[in-house]
């Protein structure tokens, strides 16, 4: 009956945000729609009525975000005698992070994305409300912040990642989306410096947009106000977000009638808009239409929040000597620091695996947990899997990736428990970026490791569409919260 719940929640969203139609009208549509029937058929078919495996063993899942809880739920369905423990200190760890862009854009409130973890921990699963302080994978043990030593037969690492504001000179704090953030907020969330990468920061960002609009209305003279948008040199959650906030800012400025007073400048560390050429081209066109400016290979390294000056490392290649072996000119990597004044800056912080994982035997030189990319099994420890933001896989640190990964991990973990020689399930790198291009339009960029568009729908994926806005604002959250967290969709 989970699918009914999802439809119910979609209806709730419509009612809550727009009041566009009555519940009774909506229900009539549901009853008349053959689509509704197929939703129910679809979800029921994908969920076996009986657990398929009698394999035994103690499974510990570190991290109770979307990835960890969905994995626990799926394993609960698959195992007839599940023995599962989740270690997660945050009581709101399942909150819906993709909604943070909508909060920053003034479309949602913080309460729209807040979910109590307690309500989503599957029945029978033990929840330890602590964090892990050390891993001992050779002896299948770990220690928690409360001093417990916990042993396991199988381990799933789903801690998520850390937002490393401290890596930018002038800022302090390494935080998560929903954890304590006082240190970061000493300087971020005020005086023109904003970041929607954490929930409270997203609330602040909308205030920042309002402040900039007020400032723009008072602004005289020919020099425009400067709004900067950064994108760091590390892998990040939701690669589209640094651009989404720019589109939302643009839309708000246009609506307030002050777009001509503000220059919007995108400063990414990389040299393109998107790793998939089709989407890159589409975004470039959208940027031009909106008179956005951009400077590639320009990475934020320091900020002086008193003087309102941001320092960027600008990189480029210079032609060196001719290499006889290669029959090519060698290239030399060059860099210099450039300063930019700002009236508003949106910071996408550098991101890393939490040190407790990254610097443990489970981590790697770059921190991210090294896994076989298709099976998500740890490279060195066969009884350990990793998924979500902490796993070392290219491109996708998104809920959309996690939605594919948790099924892969659950299938493969059960296979290991059953001593099967082959791991049955493979991840293909699928991820999805509903790129908000205005309040009312979204480009639904779906892709995988082939770096080609992989649309789920028979529509040109490079077009901005109103229906994807509806999908993003009304449907994805209920699908995630009630479909994915229960391990069914």
């Amino acid at each position, binding site marked *: 009956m989970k*699918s009914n719940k*999802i*439809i119910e929640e979609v*209806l709730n969203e*419509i009612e809550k945000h*727009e009041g*566009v*139609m009555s519940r009774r*009208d909506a229900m009539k*549509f549901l009853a008349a*729609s053959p689509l509704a029937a*197929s*939703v129910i058929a*679809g*979800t029921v078919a*994908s969920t076996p009525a009986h657990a398929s495996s009698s394999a035994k063993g103690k499974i510990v899942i570190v991290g109770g975000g979307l990835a960890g809880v969905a994995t626990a739920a799926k394993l609960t369905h698959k195992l007839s005698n599940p023995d599962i423990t989740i270690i997660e200190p945050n009581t709101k760890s399942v909150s819906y992070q993709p909604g943070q862009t909508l909060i920053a854009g003034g479309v949602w409130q913080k309460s729209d994305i807040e979910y109590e973890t307690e309500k989503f921990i599957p029945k029978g699963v033990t929840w330890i409300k602590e964090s892990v302080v050390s891993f001992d994978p050779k002896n299948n043990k770990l220690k928690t912040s409360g001093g417990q030593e916990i042993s396991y037969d199988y381990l799933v690492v789903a801690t998520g990642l850390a937002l490393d504001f401290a890596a930018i000179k002038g800022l302090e704090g390494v935080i998560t989306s929903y954890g304590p953030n006082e240190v970061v907020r000493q300087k971020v969330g005020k005086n023109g410096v904003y970041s929607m990468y954490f929930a409270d920061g997203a609330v602040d960002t909308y205030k920042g947009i309002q402040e900039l609009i007020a400032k723009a209305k008072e602004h005289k003279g020919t020099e425009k106000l400067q709004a900067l948008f950064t*994108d*760091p*040199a*590390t*892998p990040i959650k939701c*690669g589209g977000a640094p*651009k989404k906030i720019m589109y939302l800012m643009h839309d708000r400025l246009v609506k307030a009638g002050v777009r001509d007073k503000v220059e919007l400048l*995108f400063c*990414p*560390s*990389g*040299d393109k*808009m*998107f*790793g998939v050429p089709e989407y890159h081209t589409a975004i470039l066109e959208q940027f031009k239409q909106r008179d956005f400016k951009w400077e590639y*290979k320009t990475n934020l390294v320091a900020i002086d929040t008193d003087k309102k000056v941001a320092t960027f490392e600008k990189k480029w*290649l210079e032609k060196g000597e001719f*290499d006889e*072996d*290669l029959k*090519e000119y*060698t*290239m030399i*990597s060059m860099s210099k620091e450039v300063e930019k004044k700002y009236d508003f800056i949106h910071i996408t912080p550098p991101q890393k695996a939490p040190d407790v994982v990254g610097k443990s035997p489970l981590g790697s030189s770059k921190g991210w947990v*090294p896994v076989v*990319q298709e099976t998500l099994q740890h*490279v060195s420890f066969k009884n350990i899997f990793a998924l979500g933001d902490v796993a*070392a896989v*290219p*491109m996708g640190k998104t809920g959309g990736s996690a939605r594919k990964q948790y099924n892969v991990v659950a299938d493969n973990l059960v296979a290991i428990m059953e001593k099967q020689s082959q791991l049955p399930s493979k991840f*293909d790198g699928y991820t999805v970026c509903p790129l908000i291009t205005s309040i009312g339009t979204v480009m639904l960029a779906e892709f*995988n490791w*082939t770096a*080609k568009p*992989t649309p*789920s*729908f028979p529509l040109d994926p490079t077009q901005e569409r109103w*229906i994807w806005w*509806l*999908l993003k604002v*009304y*449907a994805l959250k209920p699908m995630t919260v009630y*479909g994915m967290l229960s391990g069914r*969709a």
Partner: protein
Amino acid sequence: MKKITFTLLSIATMALLTGCGDKPKSDIVTYKYTPAEVYTATCAHCHGDKGEGMPSKKGPAIDKKTIPELEMDLFDIKNGGVGQSTATEHDVMEHNMKKLKEKGYEYDVKAMANYIYNTFNRAK
């Protein structure tokens, strides 16, 4: 406004249905040279005959990396970064790879990672 609800239900349905059992839509690609041929003809100039690295050519050693590490690096090089607008960690090699590709020295990331690992790392 009924249209909104209908549209929503349609897309929610499509998304739920496609959630299970979708297939990767990758094209079949063929390559002119095998990973071994590409390595010997090009990579070896800077990474060494055994992947041991050549400081004089600024080519790092690649004989101690695992297959997933190699895959991540090769993906980063060929894609110019592992994200959307995130910088590559190999800006010079990204440029070199584009040149190599123009000359036909293209390869599958997985096949090349396996070749490098099996030939230089595991053999030791």
